[in-house]
């Protein structure tokens, strides 16, 4: 169970893991996530599902090496297995009512919006995509998006590919060009999701964001993932992970997401 059948390098310190998991691959839909424990005794880490194959009984996870558990994951080889994997968790994306959907991905967030593009193509629904990253080496799967989206727009902070600037630069251009945009789905760093939401607010374009909060159980028990949406406390694991980007309190969410980074050197039992 949970065997890593394929591992790809897609960008520096970013890998795709194709995991054999019959139960999850059978039931998962775009927008949902899993919780992984890499080794016995490890922490529970949420990852959004960025592709799945029901026939081969696999799901694909995109992992950026940033902390202890993702470093441990980087040590695993094809054929190794994850200690535990639970899912699919959270609610699937539900944006089929929008004809003209723009998918916006920032950095590894691009991988998270990919299954939505693929599923919409299969259902005969259109989508455009705006992919953004610091530099072109951090962008991947452009051809896959081209195969599934009407238009693929790219931005890089340094201008090494596509428009020089941010995803918001491109989104503003598309709005100015008169594109019909019924809804925007944006996945990426919180600051980017906030900036996109601030832009679309001006044009009253419904905007959905995917909140990658701190979590322990992922099933609505610990409350660690709570955030304020429209003045109400919501739980990313059972109420989300996708929320109305115009209603999310990003300042609070960003503060909360930093919490354990400040406590990386955990305190221990006193002597």
């Amino acid at each position: 169970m949970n065997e890593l059948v394929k591992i790809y390098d897609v960008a520096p310190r970013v890998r795709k893991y194709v995991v054999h998991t019959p139960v999850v691959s059978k039931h998962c839909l775009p927008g949902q996530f899993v919780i992984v424990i890499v080794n016995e005794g490890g922490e529970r880490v949420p990852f959004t599902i960025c592709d799945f194959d029901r026939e081969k009984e696999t799901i694909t996870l995109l992992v950026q090496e940033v902390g202890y558990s993702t470093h441990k994951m980087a040590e695993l080889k094809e054929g190794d297995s994850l200690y535990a994997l639970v899912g699919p968790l959270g609610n699937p994306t539900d944006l089929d009512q929008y004809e003209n959907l723009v998918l916006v991905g920032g950095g590894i967030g691009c991988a998270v919006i990919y299954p939505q593009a693929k599923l919409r193509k299969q259902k005969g629904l259109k989508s455009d995509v705006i992919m953004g990253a610091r530099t072109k080496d951090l962008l991947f799967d452009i051809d896959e998006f081209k195969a599934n989206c009407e238009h693929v727009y790219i931005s890089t902070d340094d201008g090494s590919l596509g428009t020089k600037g941010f995803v918001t630069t491109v989104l503003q251009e598309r709005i100015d060009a008169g594109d019909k945009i019924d809804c925007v789905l944006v996945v990426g760093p919180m600051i980017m999701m906030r900036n996109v939401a601030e832009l679309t607010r001006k044009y009253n374009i419904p905007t959905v964001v995917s909140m990658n909060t701190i979590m322990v159980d992922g099933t609505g028990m610990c409350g660690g993932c709570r955030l304020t949406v429209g003045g109400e406390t919501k739980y990313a694991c059972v109420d989300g992970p996708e929320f109305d980007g115009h209603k999310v309190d990003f300042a609070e969410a960003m503060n909360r997401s930093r919490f354990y980074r400040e406590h990386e050197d955990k305190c221990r039992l006193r002597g």
Partner: protein
Amino acid sequence: MNNGPRNKTLHQPAEQRIHNFSEVNLGFDDNLMMEEASRCINCKNAPCRTGCPVGINIPAFIQCLTKNDKDGALAVISEASLLPAICGRVCPQENQCEGKCIRKAKLGGSVAIGALERYVGDYGLKKGTADLKAPAFNGKKVAVIGSGPAGLACAADCAQKGFKVTIFEAFHKAGGVLVYGIPEFRLPKDDVVAKEIDKLKALGVEFRLNTVVGKAITFDELKEEYDAIFIGTGAGLPMFMGIKGENLNGVSSANELLTRVNLMQAYKDDAITPVYCGKSVAVIGAGNVAMDAARTAKRIGGGEVYIIYRRGREEMPARAEEIDHAEEEGIKLVLLTNPVEILGEEGKVCGIKCVKMELGEPDASGRRRPIPVEGSEFVIDVDQVVVALGTSPNPLMRKSCKELEFSKKGTIIVNEESMATSVDNIYAGGDAVTGAATVILAMGAGRKAAKAIIEKLA
């Protein structure tokens, strides 16, 4: 008859135990056990039995103990409960069996039934699972959702009657609240919980971990494969107060603190899961979970820990023993006090603003209603706040099994005799039905459902 007063169990001294997670209550040794067992009058009416949610034949097992017949005592308890090492530790005996004991008022105090049960339970664990084996398969399959006390009890009874039982558990370890909630120092995980669970495995119960029913497997799939389903998913979303500052860094639910420390073992030096350890901690609430959270915070942070509660000591819902233990460990009770705001600085907790309360007329619960005292606001300097005000039912079940009937509160509606839900062959029990309650009530519900399943299907 032994006319002496009730014997006390051995305890790890408070000044020592606040530096470790080892068990606080060490139970009876052989001599104390014999002493205490001889205090039971073996009275005819045995009112203690009516106080036991699973109906253990208490005088009978204690009579075995007076003859030092531990196997006999274990056999008597096993007729009613497969998990005595757990129940002996965590049941609120003072309100149950011991609350009904006729020695309670005058004759030196109730017989320490819980401690005796624990003694027998631990003896059973030492014996291991060699005597247990799966009975012949009766051809019927039962799915149990959740491996907490309700699910374990239901599974144990069904398995003993020849059902093939599969328990589905969302976490990577079996035991539910017994492993994520109740701390190690009150209920050892490897030495007690895991060994009790091994007994179920020996009876042929299959555990499917990391599996969220409704997500990884649908109700329809379960119904197709199993003849009966028992839902013991426990309580769910932690409740917060809805006051300003609750989403500051340093504020968590008791569930989160306890899960990090118990299930994820964040108290250990080599743990990977982080936990925040404040130097001055306010725990809001006064139930058993609040006591567990406060005592855990004391052990990991080592600073001041306050329990803030809006009513008085009399009204505290926690077991008397837990409150005593907390106070012995230096935890301060701040009673007749209600938080009104959590104060923050740069996104982090720096204090809690409270108002003093006084008790007015009794409210719907029969307890005197706390009323704020005008102008009595004051601030306690804390850098961590843990909210232990209970939970509301998990929305997952409502979303994934729409045919089930739920109460307005979101709990599952059942027939209280059979624990049958509105859907044929689906039963439910434990906190998912009652809202947050006790381990033994959940086990009682699991056993009732098992009885109904056995009568209907065996």
